């Protein structure tokens, strides 16, 4: 039983990323889209929270939203996967269901 949790809010604006992490089970995937991709950055105050989540969950960020926000791969927390929309679709297919944390 694994779910895909999508998050679209900057973690500095709203607690959606925190909620997604808190309410998702081990083995879940978390996909950061729109302003949530700021949560994938190294050196922020949420970095430790994201790293801790990555102990038993997989974190991805959407490529086009990273590029739009000037986030290069070398600024990402190590281990964060980058996917395009086709990869987003694959994540939806390989997980049991999708839950949006708005």
């Amino acid at each position: 039983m694994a779910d895909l949790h999508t998050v679209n809010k900057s973690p500095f604006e709203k607690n959606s990323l925190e909620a997604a992490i808190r309410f998702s089970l081990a083995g879940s995937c978390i996909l950061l889209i729109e302003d949530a991709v700021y949560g994938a950055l190294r050196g922020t105050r949420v970095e430790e929270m994201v790293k801790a989540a990555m102990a038993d969950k997989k974190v991805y960020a959407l490529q086009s939203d990273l590029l739009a926000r000037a986030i290069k791969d070398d600024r990402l927390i190590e281990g964060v996967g980058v996917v395009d929309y086709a990869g987003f679709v694959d994540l939806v297919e390989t997980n049991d269901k999708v839950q949006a944390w708005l």
Partner: protein
Amino acid sequence: MKLAIQVNEGPYQHQASDSAYHFAKAALEKGHEVCRVFFYHDGVYNGSRLTTPPQDDRNVVARWVDLAEAYDLDLVLCVAAAQRRGLVDDGEAKRNAKDATNIAPRFRISGLGQLVEAAILADRLVVFGD
């Protein structure tokens, strides 16, 4: 895979409709089925044919219409949300005695049951909102 997509926000104000569009397009291009796109809350504004974005910007409404043309998509505006926000088709104009319509081609107005039904029929419901 059969997908149902829910869009909760209008065009331009929020990225949700853009994300939903790109997701739907990618899924369709991979050969998946999108059985319904349901527009709820301010998402019903995606179905106004009267939008006129500047020429150097994307046309969110036209993009949905074109995608629906290409893949015969079912684009549904929630009737309760549409009535609140002034999205009108011929049937609604007649029922509520409105002097105009503004719904874009390929969109239709229907009840919330269409969202629930799509969630039951589809393998996955994917929600885009604020």
